């Protein structure tokens, strides 16, 4: 079913909307949640909560593209779940991925130096525009979707070593880019 029709169903308050969006996007949402929380049950909860969030926010919102909107909800729920689970010492490949990025960006020296997350986000977004498509997909799949290097290699048709190298180069470029943007590293 077309996204517009699904959105119409949400606006009509038809519960069929949940079924249709689940059928269309359930797979990629589950995968994204699983990549981050690394637990089948938690991932399913994140996806279930995504349906509820969509139901509660559409209307008034009419998000386009719907997939991206749903993915952002799922990702935020999964990250929240992961942060709660971290208190239980449960680790995640997502954290490993973030640590790669942390190392690239380096730590602030004190609370007053904490980067503004929104500004950093805008900078990372602009930086992505400078990458070739494959490198950009690799970067987003690694740090937004938390995919493993092996999975990215499979997606892009490259060897894991090539993906690792490409990610490393992208991190180096990001470091240079943020310096030029005046974000201290």
């Amino acid at each position: 079913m077309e996204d517009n029709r699904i959105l119409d169903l949400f606006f009509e308050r038809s519960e069929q909307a949940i079924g249709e969006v689940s059928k269309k996007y359930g797979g990629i949402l589950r995968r994204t949640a699983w990549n981050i929380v690394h637990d089948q049950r938690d991932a399913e909860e994140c996806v279930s909560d995504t349906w509820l969030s969509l139901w509660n926010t559409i209307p008034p919102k009419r998000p386009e593209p719907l997939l991206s909107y749903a993915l952002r909800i799922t990702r935020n729920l999964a990250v929240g779940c992961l942060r709660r689970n971290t208190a239980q010492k449960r680790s995640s490949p997502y954290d490993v991925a973030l640590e790669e990025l942390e190392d690239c960006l380096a730590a602030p020296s004190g609370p007053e130096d904490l980067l503004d997350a929104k500004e950093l986000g805008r900078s990372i977004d602009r930086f992505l525009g400078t990458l070739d498509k494959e490198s950009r997909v690799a970067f987003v799949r690694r740090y937004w979707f938390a995919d493993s290097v092996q999975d990215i290699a499979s997606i892009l048709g490259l060897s894991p070593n090539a993906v690792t190298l490409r990610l490393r180069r992208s991190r180096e470029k990001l470091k240079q880019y943020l310096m030029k943007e005046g974000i201290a590293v």
Partner: protein
Amino acid sequence: MKKEVLDQALNGIRDRYVMEAALYDPATDSGKETKMYGKNVKPRRRWLRMLLIAAVVVCLLTATAYAAGLLGPRAILIDDGQPVYEYQRQENGNWEVTENPEGGRVSLTQPQEAPEDMDPAVVAMLENSKAAWAEWSDYKASRPMPQEPEAFRMPTGAFFSDEELQSDGSGILRFYSAGPIGDDNGSPVYDPDTLIEERTVTPEDYEAWDEYISQLDAMMLFESRYDFNYGCNNAEDEAALEEIAARYGLKLRGGSTLLWSWETVKESRERMDAETGTSSPEIDFSGPQWLTNAELTDRIAQVGCHGTFFYQVPEGYDKFYYFDEGTFCVSWYYTLENGTQITCYGYNSMYGTLSSGTEVVDQVEDRSAFTERSHVCPDGTEVTILRNGNRAFIYVYLPESFFNEEIQGAPGMSDADLDAIADAICYSNIGK
């Protein structure tokens, strides 16, 4: 930098890049059960020596199952000649992906080899399944994939690009050999000397791009009636899969049913809330996927066995899922003698089902570090118990299926613990 800052910052990535990355992936799988940590390596001599030692201590068969013979870890180690990669933290704090020549991958599904004394008919079924999978893999490799339109492809030597959209619907793509530098205001600009090519992209080219994306979209969003591990991207793939399976006389895994224990989830959340001082949101446990531990135990017996599976109701379940043709997976909790709760992940794989043999995979750090012994369970079934550090694998060749259980153990796990875990299951009842 705190992870929370990065969590939020990554939200700033625009929809276009998220969609581009999402649609690049043709997979439509859910939850991604398969644990793809790495790929394995070629056999090593130390490993062969251990096999010879294991051959001396192998025990006799029982009537209900085929002995592992001299197989030991060979029954579950995947040997596709590829290296295992691991994340390692360096002294400077960086994470690096390194190759571990000692590491190996193990399969939790179909056996990687069959024992010599196995019924030739069963051996033939396993070989049959492998041949069918090879044919299916060849078919998949031969299928055309959506091609990125020529107008958008990067020229040789270019590593960067930018795009300038025009009011008439066209665009100008510029490809550079080097990344942007800052201008006087610190904004990113490209050095003209690094320009490789400037290209005008027509509205028709953008239409071709949209078509390319829609083809990827259709692949990604296709809802196959078969297990996602088969990788069917469209109805043609499904038809080819059915044809191959029929020709080889094999069954296919259809949609799976996933069940949980609400008792376990409730206990886990209450424990977490008590430890962290948080309050977890309520979950609606009224759906058919939520059962008690006792109900789940009964359901496993109903759908996967012709009698009891667990002699006693386990203390908790992570999950149970099953396919209609007999394949099932049960992940359950067990508390060691030292009080540590661990997870046991059992998978029953039918010989007569088309399978890659790598649907669920895990990694071991040292493929030569297995110790092996046999153990006779209360129903008389002899199982093989492999141990590798804090992890263990209990497997048995049954008349119609291979049951392999990974014990995700902990320090202090004893042989008595492993025996008790093995003894919790009535293997001779597995199968309808």
